[in-house]
C-alpha cells in the first residue's frame, strides 16, 4: 500500500461504515463522507449494462453532495415515514477489498457487499448484494469518502430500498 494509509486502514473504514449503518448510527455514518461527496446507486439499463451517466439515465439514488443523504437520514428517523417505521434490522458484510492509488493521491477501493434485511413490518427477510467502489481522500489524519458507487446486482426490488439496505 502506498501513501500514508495501509490496506488495513482502508478495510477498517469500510467495516466501520457497515457497522455504523447496521447500528443506525447514521450521523456518524454521514461524518465518514465529505460534504461534496458523490453517492450513486445506478439503475440497470440492460441485463449486463448499467446506466453510465446519471444525467441521461436513471439511478436508484444519486447525489452530488451529502445533503441528499442527510435528508434521508432525517426521514428514516422522523417517525413520519411509513416505510421507515419500524426500521428493518440489517447486517452489511463487506469483502474482496482491493485498493489502488490514483494519480491524485486518492484511493479507489473496490469491494463486494451484501446486506441481509429483516423486515420487522412483514416479518420477512431478503438480501441485496453487489459491488462497491469507494473513492477515499485524506482529510488530515483520516480518510473520508469522496465518492461511493453502489452496484446492486439483484435489482428486482422487494418492496423498497433505502441507504440503509445497500
Amino acid at each position, binding site marked *: 500500500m502506498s501513501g500514508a494509509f495501509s490496506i488495513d486502514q482502508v478495510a477498517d473504514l469500510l467495516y466501520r461504515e457497515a457497522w455504523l449503518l447496521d447500528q443506525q448510527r447514521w450521523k456518524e455514518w454521514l461524518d465518514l463522507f465529505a460534504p461534496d461527496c458523490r453517492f450513486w446507486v445506478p439503475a440497470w439499463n*440492460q441485463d449486463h449494462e448499467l446506466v453510465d451517466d446519471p*444525467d*441521461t439515465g*436513471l439511478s*436508484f439514488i444519486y447525489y452530488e*453532495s451529502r445533503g441528499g443523504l442527510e435528508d434521508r437520514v432525517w426521514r428514516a428517523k422522523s417517525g413520519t415515514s411509513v416505510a421507515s417505521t419500524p426500521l428493518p434490522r440489517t447486517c452489511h458484510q463487506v469483502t474482496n477489498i482491493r485498493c489502488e492509488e490514483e494519480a491524485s493521491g486518492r484511493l479507489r477501493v473496490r469491494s463486494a457487499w451484501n446486506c441481509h434485511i429483516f423486515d420487522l413490518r412483514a416479518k420477512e427477510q431478503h438480501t441485496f448484494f453487489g459491488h462497491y467502489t469507494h473513492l477515499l481522500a485524506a482529510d488530515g489524519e483520516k480518510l473520508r469518502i469522496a465518492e461511493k458507487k453502489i452496484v446492486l446486482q439483484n435489482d*428486482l*426490488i422487494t418492496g423498497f430500498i433505502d441507504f440503509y439496505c445497500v
Partner: protein
Amino acid sequence: MDALARLRGLIIDDPQGKDFRVHRDVFRDPDVFDWEMRHIFEATWVFLGLESQVPSAHDYMTTFIGRHPVVVSRDDKGELHCFINSCRHRGALVCHRAFGNRKYHVCQYHGWAYDSSGRNVHLKDREQAGYPPSFDKEDHDLVKVRKFAGYRGFLFASLAADVPSLEEHLGEARWFLDLIADQGEEGVECVPGRIVFRYRANWKMQLENAVDPYHFTSTHASYIQVLERRQKSAAADVPTSIYTNIRNAGIRRGSFAFARGHAAMWGDTPSPQARALFPSYESLVARHGEVRARWMFHTRNLSLFPNMQIAENASLQLRVMRPLSAGATEMAIWCIGPKGEAAEARRQRIRQYEDFFNPSGLATPDDVANYEDCQSGLAAWSIAWQQGHVRGFEASVAGADRFADEIGLQPERSLIGPVELGDETAFHPAYREWLRLIEAGLREDESRAHVAARGAT
C-alpha cells in the same frame, strides 16, 4: 354458492341509494384473482409498452398479458407484432431478455426458429422427421395475440378478439394520453434505466392509489417535511419539487370518471416553475394553445384500466402493473420525457423522478408500505367490507363540469373541490368495469358448461 352470485356480492354500486362498497374478498381471495386473470387481464385491452422502446428493425421487448408471456417485436419492414413467448413445440420461451434485438428467435431446446414477425422459418431436421401429413397442416408460427394496436405510440393488446377498437376502449381518456404525447414534437420516450419492484399486496391497491388525493398528506408526510427542511437549509444540490409550498397553496383537486374503467385525477401545481417542462411553456402554447399548455402544467394522474398509469406531478412516470397473485404485484416503472429534451431539463426530470417515484425514493416506499399493511390487515377475514368509497359522492356530478367543458371532454362524471376533499369516487369506474368484465366471463363459462353438459347426456 355459484360464482356469479358470489361475484355480485362483492361490489355494491347503488347511485340512487348513494352507496358504493367494495368487499374485502376482492383483494384477498385466490378465486377472485383467477377470475381477474381470465376475465380481465386475458380478456380486454392491456398496456404493453411504448413504441419508442422498440425503435429499430428486429428490436423486441418481452412482457406479460395476464399469465401469458408475450413478445413485442419489430420485423425487417418496421412492422410491429405481438406474439406469445412460447415455442409451438414444447412451449419453451423463445425470448429471454426484457429488451433485445434479434432477427431470428431460435428455441434453444430443439432448434425451431422464428423470424422477427413470429413466423416459423425453420424446423430442425424436418426432412428426416417422418411427420404424417396432419403435422404439415398445422400452423407452426408463434401464436399472435388476437388484437394489437397503438395509440400515439402507446401499445396495447388483447388476447380476446371480441373487444372494441383500441380508440373506442380508451374513449375520452385518450385526451390525457394526447397531453403526454404532445409534450415533445416527436412524442415521448423512456429514460434509460429499467426499474422493477414487487410488493406483497393486491394490484388494486396501486389501482386505487393513482387517483387517490386523500392519502397524500398522511402517507407522504415525511416527504413534505423533507421539502420544508430543504427550503430552510437552502442546500444547493437537492432536487426542486412541484410540491414545495403545498401546505399554503390552497390547491384544488378534480377527477373525471370515464367509461371502461378509466379515470383521471388532476389539480393545481403548487410550484409549476419546478417542472422540467417549465422552460418549454411558451413553445407549448405556440404548438398547442394556451388551454392545453396550461393543462400540461396541472398535475395529472391517469389510470387506464386495468394495468397502466401515468402520473405527471413530481416528475413524469409510466407504471405497468402485473398482478402475481391476490397478495403480490410486480410494478415496472419508467421515467418518461419528451424526445429531444434539453440536457438540463432532462437532468432535472430524472432527479425529481428519483426523489419521489423510485422504490428508493422518498415517497413511493411509503405507498408500498401502506399497501402491504393493508394486505396484512385484510387477513381479518371476518370483516367483510371496506369503508369510505363514497367519499366525494356529494361533490360528484354527472357528465362534464366547467373544467371538462374547457377542454371539450365528455367524462361520465366530474368532480372538483379543495385537495382536502380527498375524492374516492374516481375509483368507481375501475370497480364497475371489473364487475362488468368478470360477470361477462363467468356467464360465458356458465353457458359453455351448459353446452358441455347437454353434449354429455
